[in-house]
């Protein structure tokens, strides 16, 4: 299988190279046979990369330690599911995984467009294959996952998977992020094709709308799952540390969100054509830049398990794509420019402009903060740290302005909002916010940001509910349907609009969770069996201790009885594990989760004959709302992605 995998990778490289020339030459000569050949090359590359992935998976599962990658990331006692996830646990495997996903995306894009999108497809294929070629170059010559251990060297057992990666979340989180990062390649490729062909109308946007939504969805869910993984696995009681690699995933999501909003303006009013081109380019650059940050090691990160000397390749690739795409944009600038017309600043269009600004503002502050240690070292010669206090200080107020816009935008009318319609749409959300403000204040929410966030949550939440309410009421009046049927039918009739509102509701849920973090309580204490400690309204009694040997680790487990107002509330079993192969300690947190708060316990260790335990307890209010937000975001985006039957049959667009 190793030889098969290696040959498949080499053939895929050659095929991709051929495909680029075939697609470009075919398009230039308008030869449909060559364009179709390029499409088949894409399918061929997909098949070859599938063979390579299956070959590597097989070696991981059978523990073929003659392959360096297998020896480095698995061991004999690595549980089977984690042998499977080892595919993306290290540099070489994850790059192959990346290549494979890209090839699958390309296959789907070709199958989707080969019959009716002959204008844009050839250059889009050439662009995707160019990106593919870069990754195949790495797969073959820089980070070959089939590399054998040196001759005469025998590995009896592998090093095993990093214990922190042995978590169910890691089965889903990295693939989702990859699906997101890589997914933006398709809209980028169609944008490049639009610029190369000069067909700069809305075709490239309508051809890739669902691709963009899908990539954005995967990246958003991937980021949320990453937060969930950090929360349940790393044991520090938080879900977001503003780590450079976390930031790298957030940046393309932010520009992608801006893009999703601004394309609406292009589709409806044929405005912002240059801006949309810039946004999709930026989103793709940031996706590659994120990969560069993850893998180059230029900035220290908790994700250092994938750091290597591969950075210069990504930097070079990034430089080339920026050069080419910016040159194309400059050449096509005159054609892209349209006569933009805005009728009022208090309009939906204008709110989209400002939301774009805020998304880019947050993106810039995250990029600037992430890169500042390097800038500081270059300018001042001193290395400094830019951590959560900086990012929170800069981003929290901007984020709250964004939340305000989430509430205001949908209430503004297209073209112009009159004072009467402003009053009609805003009176209930503003009224509820005014009523909620003193309630929050007197219930103890008195710090500036949590207070403002809480009031805005009421404002935005009620504005979204009001939109649904109005729609359902109007539909019921027209059709006489029951409220639930009216809600479903109204949403399905207007999927992008109401799907978007559901996503806005998800953002409200995220902000509920973020706001809760202002009230976190943390207690660290060393206790003897029978002793208790108090955190917030809860007391935690150290009831029992046991030590257990499991297949690949030894675990110390303490039993903590949780009491509230003297009543038994639940039991927590935090663990401290020592993995046998790597000899690495690892904490396993235990959490009692409710919609109101999480009770989160970690065990630092148990010592002495009297089993004295050092435990850390966190009472984290409202965290669950973040995960609920993730699910709602996925639901809303899927609704928005459901295709709508065209009312009039498209006239086709081939030349």
């Amino acid at each position, binding site marked *: 299988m190793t030889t098969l995998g290696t040959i498949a990778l080499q053939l895929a490289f050659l095929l991709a190279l051929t495909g680029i020339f075939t697609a470009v030459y075919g398009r230039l000569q308008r030869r449909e046979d060559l364009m179709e050949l390029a499409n088949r090359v894409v399918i061929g590359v997909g098949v070859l990369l599938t063979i390579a992935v299956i070959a590597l998976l097989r070696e991981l599962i059978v523990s073929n330690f003659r392959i360096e990658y297998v020896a480095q990331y698995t061991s004999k006692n690595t549980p089977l599911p984690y042998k499977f996830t080892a595919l993306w646990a290290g540099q070489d495997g994850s790059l192959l995984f990346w290549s494979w996903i890209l090839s699958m995306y390309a296959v789907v894009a070709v199958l989707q467009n080969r019959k009716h999108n002959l204008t844009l497809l050839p250059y889009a294929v050439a662009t995707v294959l160019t990106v593919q070629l870069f990754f195949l170059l790495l797969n073959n010559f820089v980070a070959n996952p089939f590399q054998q251990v040196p001759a005469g060297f025998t590995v009896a057992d592998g090093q095993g998977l990093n214990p922190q990666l042995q978590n169910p979340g890691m089965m889903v989180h990295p693939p989702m992020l990859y699906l997101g990062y890589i997914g933006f390649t398709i809209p980028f490729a169609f944008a490049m094709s639009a610029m190369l062909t000069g067909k700069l109308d809305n075709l490239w946007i309508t051809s890739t709308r669902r691709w963009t939504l899908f990539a954005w969805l995967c990246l958003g869910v991937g980021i949320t799952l990453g937060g969930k993984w950090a929360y349940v696995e790393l044991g520090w009681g938080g879900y977001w540390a503003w780590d450079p690699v976390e930031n790298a995933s957030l940046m393309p999501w932010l520009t992608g969100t801006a893009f999703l909003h601004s394309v609406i303006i292009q589709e409806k009013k044929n405005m912002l054509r240059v801006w949309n081109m810039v946004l999709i380019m930026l989103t793709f650059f940031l996706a590659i830049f994120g990969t560069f940050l993850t893998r180059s090691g230029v900035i220290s990160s908790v994700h250092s398990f994938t750091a290597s000397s591969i950075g210069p390749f990504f930097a070079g690739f990034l430089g080339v794509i920026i050069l080419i795409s910016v040159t194309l944009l400059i050449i096509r600038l005159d054609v892209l420019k349209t006569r933009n017309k805005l009728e009022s600043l208090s309009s939906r269009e204008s709110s989209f*402009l400002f939301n774009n600004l805020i998304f880019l503002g947050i993106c810039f502050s995250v990029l600037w903060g992430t890169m500042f240690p390097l800038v500081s070292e270059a300018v001042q010669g001193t290395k400094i740290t830019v951590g959560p206090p900086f990012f929170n200080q800069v981003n929290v107020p*901007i984020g709250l302005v964004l939340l305000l816009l989430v509430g205001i935008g949908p209430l503004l009318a297209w073209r112009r909002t009159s004072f009467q319609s402003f009053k009609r749409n805003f009176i209930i959300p503003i009224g509820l916010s005014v009523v909620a403000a003193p309630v929050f204040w007197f219930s103890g929410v008195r*710090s500036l940001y949590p207070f403002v966030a809480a009031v805005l949550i009421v404002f935005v939440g009620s504005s979204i509910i009001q939109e649904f309410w109005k729609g359902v009421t109007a539909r019921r009046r027209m059709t006489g349907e029951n409220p639930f049927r009216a809600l479903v039918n109204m949403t399905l009739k207007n999927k992008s609009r109401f799907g978007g509102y559901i996503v806005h509701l998800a953002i409200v849920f995220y902000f509920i969770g973020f706001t809760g973090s202002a009230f976190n309580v943390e207690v660290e204490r060393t206790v003897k069996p029978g002793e208790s400690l108090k955190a917030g309204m809860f007391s935690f009694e150290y009831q029992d201790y046991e030590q257990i040997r499991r297949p690949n680790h030894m675990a110390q487990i303490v039993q903590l009885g949780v009491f509230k107002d003297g009543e038994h509330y639940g039991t927590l079993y935090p663990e401290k594990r020592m993995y046998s192969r790597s000899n690495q300690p690892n904490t396993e947190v235990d959490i009692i989760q409710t919609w109101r708060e999480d009770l989160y316990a970690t065990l630092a260790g148990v010592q002495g004959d009297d089993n004295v335990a050092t435990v850390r307890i966190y009472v984290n209010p409202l965290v669950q709302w973040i995960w609920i937000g993730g699910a709602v975001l996925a639901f809303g985006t899927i609704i928005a992605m459901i295709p709508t039957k065209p009312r009039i049959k498209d006239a086709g667009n081939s030349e």
Partner: protein
Amino acid sequence: MSIHRLLVTISVAFLVGGVLTYPASVSAQQEKPAFQEITGSLSCYCGCGLLLADCAPEECATSRELRQEVRNQLSQDKNNRQVIQSMVSIYGEKVLAAPPKSGFNLSAYILPFVFLILGASIVYSIARRWMGGDDQSGGDTGNGNPAYTGDDALKHRSRIEEELRDFDT
């Protein structure tokens, strides 16, 4: 004051006010014990990227060392500010979780807001240009009647209805 001016004023006031009052806001939020507050403003430079308060000492030698030093400094009856200053003098500025707000480091805090203010000015001026300097033409007058009359009214009403149908699909 027009609606958009009101909204812009609220947003700018909020942004400026928020940034200026942030430290007070955070300190008022919770009176944390000194050790927690200090370790919450220091960074563990082991490579984990976490605050010292969050990096588990049982798994990280750097965290253990830094925490012990904080305890030593606190035992000398120093206040939080003095402890942080001592930590910086021992380990360098990299031990701070955020750049100090002085000298070149100030640009870290200022630049994002400069970007936003410049961006807002650009967006505003572009929007005004697109409006052709005329904020009064057309649109909903709020009483249900369009601002057009005669044939124009009919033409625009049918266009609006057509566009609204498009928005609904």
